[in-house]
């Protein structure tokens, strides 16, 4: 049973991938491009050493963002606000982190703490609104995204803008050298390539921590039983309001880490062109990876691969928007496919139910 279930979990994304390649081929054909050629150049470009580093770098924030979303999903809570949460966290952390200098480990740790605290506070607002005012978290987190974007745009041009900068656009002061996270290149003997973000280490730790939290701790147990049967959860003594707030804050804490890979590894300051959209992409990755720490890692790498390899397309006269369509196809198909499979397997699942051990 477990094996069959795993098989499905693995085959679903593969089938989704194949079908979405098929659909994208059709679209390429209608605009008069050769699909085979297109995918070939994408693939060849995507597996170059330089690209691989870039893919891993891109996948780090995607992965952490997916985890932030998944923590909520596990208890049936939809945090659509990771986007606003990580942007707020990154801005504040970038600003405060640039005000002083201590030795690197402490400096980086401090920046992480500031980002995590800011993002979880921002997320806590949605938790509070749900618990005290009965406002659904989907509505409130979407609204908070807008408010956050507005606040960031305003404060970046006023309070947080680098003083006496001769740069045209608003941006925070650059982090001092001690606040930058060193790259990992020397550990992989790839010093000739671009920087491999040191935050990769944190992402791996976050994945392990997430697994431990959800599947091993009593808090995770509470999250899972609430997600599965909220009424029984309440009868078991769980205070649903308290748990909503805890889950929202935890989700926000993970969200705080999302922007730190680009911040500490590459940008070193918050600017107008700081990467956005990572929070929304995380929702897709969480769906793709079924809230599983390993599944989400694969999903994050896949999306990062598509994004990177699509960059070659413009040079070959193929609109690179095709890549975004592919991502959308994959998501749609995976979601539909999981559902179809789920229904299809229900009988077997029940049949084999007694064999299955719930981890």
């Amino acid at each position, binding site marked *: 049973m477990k094996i069959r279930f795993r098989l499905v979990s693995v085959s679903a994304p593969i089938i989704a991938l194949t079908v979405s390649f098929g659909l994208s081929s059709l679209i390429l054909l209608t605009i008069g491009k050769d699909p085979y050629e297109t995918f070939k150049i994408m693939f060849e470009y995507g597996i170059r050493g330089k690209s691989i580093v870039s893919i891993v770098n891109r996948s780090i924030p995607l992965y952490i963002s997916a985890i932030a979303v998944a923590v909520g999903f596990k208890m049936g809570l939809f945090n659509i606000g990771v986007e606003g949460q990580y942007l707020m966290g990154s801005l504040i952390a970038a600003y405060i982190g640039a005000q002083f200098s201590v030795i690197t480990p402490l400096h980086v740790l401090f920046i992480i703490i500031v980002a995590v605290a800011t993002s979880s506070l921002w997320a806590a607002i949605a938790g509070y609104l749900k618990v005290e005012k009965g406002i659904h978290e989907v509505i409130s987190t979407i609204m908070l995204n807008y408010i956050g974007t507005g606040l960031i745009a305003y404060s970046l041009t006023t309070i947080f803008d680098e003083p006496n900068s001769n740069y045209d656009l608003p941006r925070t002061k650059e982090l001092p050298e001690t606040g930058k996270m060193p790259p990992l290149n020397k550990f992989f003997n790839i010093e000739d390539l671009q920087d491999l973000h040191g935050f990769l280490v944190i992402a791996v730790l976050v994945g392990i921590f997430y697994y*431990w939290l959800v599947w*091993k*701790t*009593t*808090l995770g*147990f*509470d999250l*899972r*039983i609430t997600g*599965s*049967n909220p*009424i*029984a959860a*309440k*009868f*078991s*003594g*769980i*205070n649903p309001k308290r748990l909503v707030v805890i889950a929202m804050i935890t989700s926000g804490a993970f969200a705080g880490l999302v922007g730190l890979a680009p911040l500490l590894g590459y940008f070193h300051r918050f600017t107008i062109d700081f990467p956005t959209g990572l929070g929304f992409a995380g929702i897709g990755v969480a769906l793709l990876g079924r809230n599983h720490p390993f599944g989400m890692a694969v999903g994050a790498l896949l999306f990062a691969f598509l994004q990177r390899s699509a960059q070659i397309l413009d040079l070959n006269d193929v609109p690179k928007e095709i890549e975004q369509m592919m991502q959308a196809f994959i998501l749609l198909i995976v979601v539909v496919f999981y559902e179809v499979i789920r229904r299809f397997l229900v*009988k077997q699942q*029940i*049949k*084999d*139910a*007694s*064999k*299955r*051990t*719930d981890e």
Partner: protein
Amino acid sequence: MNLAIKLENITKTYPGVLANSEVSVKINSGDIHAIVGENGAGKSTLMKILYGMVKPDSGKIEIFETKASMTSPKNAISLGIGMVHQHFMLAKNLTVLENIILGIDRPFLKNIKLSKYKSEIQKVMELYSLNIDLNQYVDELSVGEKQRVEIIKVLYRGAKILILDEPTAVLVPQEVKELFKNLRNLKNNGVTVLFISHKLDEVLEIADEISVMRSGQLIDTVANNVSKTQLAEMMIGKSLPTPPARISSTNEEVILKVENIKSIDEDGRTIFEDITFKVHKSEILGIAGVEGNGQKEVVEAIIGIQELHSGKVEFKNNDLKDQGTRERLESGISFIPEDRQLQAMIMDMNLTNNVIIGRQNIEKYKSSLGTVKTKNAIKESEKVISSFEVKTPGTSTLATALSGGNQQKFVVGRELEDNPNLLIASQPTRGIDIGAQALIWEKLRNSRDEGLSVLLISADLEELIGLSDRIIVFYQGKLVKELNAENVTPEDLGGYMTGLKK
């Protein structure tokens, strides 16, 4: 006589379990046919096979003397078979009428002509003499009425064979009478009724024929000319256990004190008020009441799920006012809710996880690191399984794979093995076979003699009278009567419960 159903050598295995083994049975058209048997005997499985929810491994099915293979409930309905589940599948914010037509196949985007459906449904109701107000919201119906809506729903879809899995388990005696009257009407109009029950008196009252199942096999089908004792012997292979004599051990010490409590709902209507009672150490206090008279909310208030408007609840001389459900459970109250699947278990988790539910934060299951102590949970679930004779292949079995009665035994065992000071038991033997019922009664009595206080709610009046030391009666949100259980009859109790007696 025509056969409605003919089953030949139906076999169904689940891993480690032979749920149905070579079951053969013939059911006459227009009969009321009862199926009885121990928990886990395979009754529900057999019904699910008939209704197309479960596919048998082998065997032949004939419906109205033509060979049939049921592939889905939809397919079963088209063959004239309808099933009413124990958990009603009604949308409570819709009217009865809307619920009945919900899910009926109709051309896409075509207007629903309510009046047309209404007159069709009314015809069905007239034909079978079933009454209900079609414009009422399901929310406002009693359990018995909801069940009637489900029955009308399947009849309207053309069912000629009606399957009911433990229909009387959720009903109070008056409602059972009403249901049986309705079933007789159906029978007189040619409907074949197939139902499962653990209550042998009821079975003998209404069934034409009775099939007995044991360990997956159909032992025998007999006409309704057997005695209760004979039936019980066929069922459990030994004679009916007699309840032990009553020895009251009630102590003066007060464990639970409920003073003048009152609750109101969102619209400001009173759910219950002026409720005052005490439960002593080593006492079983029974609560009698027709469903919807406030008793459910009162016990929920005691464990902190229902909010109090005024009044006070004290447990072991501590005011519970500022304690949440978790603190109350941890301070020595155990709770068996009335609906095991909805309120007490996580169906897609295994028994090891389910044994922790309700006590996930006590030291026994929570390490100082905050992780779950799985080893203790396994040990505890093994203990519950063996001492309450839960039939299951093991502790890693999912709750959903247990038969209804075995789920119930597991929940009762989990709460009792916890050695509480006060056990609040709502319908503790619902869906449990007569053998296991005697086991649970005995455990309850023994625990009481050792000092446990019990607040017992049961729709089974004989159980209530037999187990309780004292009984309080709820009617329209008020405590209307307190009785000594020793000299009260079910009829008396019924009178107080319906407000006829004061």
